């Protein structure tokens, strides 16, 4: 039975697939897929190095602090970090007092709700609070940045490229795709998936942020620092993960060598 019906079923699927293949091939020749602006002008992230790259990489805390400063002074007006608590900033090297002060002075306050009176109000942030969500009137909620560096391929480089990638729409693009002109209120950026995004270049000029550690606050430097910071917010445990990894791999290597020798011993008389 199986030997009879098996080949029949096989033929059925095979013919159906040939049918799809033939039709697909025919339409691919007669009406080839039209090229799109996204397809031709979208760029992969720039090649940029971070201290945390690679299996030995570690976050540069000084850089993370600068990145946090850029986030606080530039990004935080619109973008929240709801998975990061103020207390987490202690891992960037801030003291308990500094963390408290950062929380207290944070621009977006914690919403409160009094169940008795039904009143909604605000209070200052405290260290155990998560960085509050920003509601941006008229535009909805801009994306939360906690995980942005993991939510994009090659996320750190992506953020850096996006921040430094704003430019005039190339004439070549307009010539080839006249319908793809960047709409009003959007900005052209080849590192963004559909080339036009609603956010104007946030880091526009040197010294937009005053660094206190003597680093020169160029647009490139600030973009890099905030990208590094967002890599940390996405994966705060990366340093500990790699450290644990080396200990585990070292142990496993020794154990595996021993297991190999033991296996050879056991099998010594059977080969």
């Amino acid at each position, binding site marked *: 039975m199986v030997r009879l019906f098996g*080949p029949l079923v096989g033929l059925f699927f*095979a013919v159906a697939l040939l049918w799809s293949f033939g039709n697909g091939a025919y339409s691919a020749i007669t009406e080839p897929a039209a090229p799109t602006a996204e397809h031709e002008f979208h760029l992969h992230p720039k090649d940029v190095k971070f201290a945390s790259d690679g299996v030995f990489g570690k976050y540069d805390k000084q850089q993370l602090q600068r990145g946090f400063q850029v986030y606080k002074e530039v990004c935080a007006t619109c973008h929240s970090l709801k*998975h990061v608590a103020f207390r987490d900033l202690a891992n960037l090297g801030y003291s308990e007092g500094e963390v408290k002060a950062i929380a207290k002075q944070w621009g977006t306050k914690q919403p409160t709700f009094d169940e008795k009176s039904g009143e909604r109000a605000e209070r200052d942030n405290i260290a155990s609070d998560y960085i509050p969500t920003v509601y941006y009137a008229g535009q909805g909620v801009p994306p939360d940045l906690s995980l942005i560096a*993991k939510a994009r391929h090659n996320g750190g480089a992506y953020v850096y490229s996006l921040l430094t990638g704003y430019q005039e729409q190339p004439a070549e693009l307009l010539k080839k795709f006249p319908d793809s002109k960047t709409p009003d209120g959007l900005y052209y950026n080849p590192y963004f998936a559909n080339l036009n995004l609603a956010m104007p270049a946030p880091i526009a000029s040197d010294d937009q942020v005053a660094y206190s550690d003597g680093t020169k606050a160029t647009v490139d430097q600030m973009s890099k620092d905030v990208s590094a910071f967002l890599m940390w917010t996405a994966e705060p445990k990366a340093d500990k993960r790699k450290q644990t990894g080396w200990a585990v791999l070292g142990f496993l290597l020794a154990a595996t060598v021993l297991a190999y020798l033991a296996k050879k011993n056991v099998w010594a008389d059977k*080969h």
Partner: protein
Amino acid sequence: MSFPWANEYKPAFGLTQWLDEKLPLPRFVYNAVGAGYPVPRNLNYMWNFGVLAGFCLVLQIVTGVILAMHYAPNALVAFDSTEHIMRDVNWGWMMRYAHANGASAFFVVVYLHIFRGFFYSSYKAPREMIWLLGVVIFLLMMATAFMGYVLPWGQMSFWGAKVITGLFGAIPVVGEPLQIWLLGGFAPDNAALNRFFSLHFLLPFVIAGVIILHIWALHIPGSSNPTGVEVKAESDTVPFHPYYTAKDGFGLGVFLLIYCAILFFAPNALGHPDNYIPANPLSTPAHIVPEWYFWPFYAILRAFTYDFFFIPAKLMGVLAMFGSILVWFFLPWLDTSPVRSGHYRPLFRKFFWFGLIPTMAILFYCGGAPAEEPFVMLSQLASLYYFAHFLIILPLVSSIEKPEPLPFSITEAVLGKDESAVLNANPAAA
């Protein structure tokens, strides 16, 4: 035990003696994976993956139970509770990465285990039942993995749930009500998330049960081996312990080295970035792909792009996707060659290495690629070969092929000579 020379369990202490009389658990273990189970002496490293798959199941259950202590199966907070595990729970990041990559490791091991079975025809009599149970385990694994991937409630979780339950919508007449019933709503939401969590917790224990049956069925004929020649005498076998426990121990070490290298140094390499974006029912990711271990079947699903007579393309795709696994159930009766091992089947071997393996590679690749040319056409050709291989080529090959001569016994294959073979051929020599 089916081999008369199997070692018999002898309790060494008063306590084990007592236990052996009341509940012979030590005897059971001894006969199942101890010195009481005679195994062919010539198993190669491809035979390590059964034990490794068992290890993966334990790993997934342990890490999964722990994650369930911290995870909240509610559409409002599921994503945040996953991040809570990653950031605040002690060692939570390690548990989650171990579980997520553990699923991948489980599938790698099981795929190797299955393809070992394809090459050495492990499905042939008298081992059909082991094979059938194995396919059931694989189907259960796929269901479990799919539902587990929904739990973090990221974009890929949500849209994966939507697309896969949408497959049931392709079934004529009952499809749509069935889909709504499965989801407990009109789109994936809290009801779906909660039932997926419940089933994701339950199914691994069902898998464990079927694995016990799988091993039970294995112990009736005993393990197959690379020559495909059945065990003839005691010299053909060695006791499972210490020979294969030692070998599996080494295999486990190598497996853990690779697994931990990924877990600790590239934990997101096998995942999709979009799943770090919270589920948004109003916006579909640019291209939806399931986890890598579903890619071949996803490629087959998408290969049907045109209605075939009165059968809609979508239904064809769903039939083919399920059919591509169901066909494995019939393998023992499709491949009728009396020779098991691919080592002694010249034609079969060619179709395996130059047909099935490249086809699977193409299907893997195309399933993860965007649905555009040339990937669609490639996956159509590969799917065609896939079905032809199992349903047409295997039955044909097994009737026209002339197998190479088999060794007399396992012992002869290993040592180059078997004294009992000489005895058999020339009794006078004794």
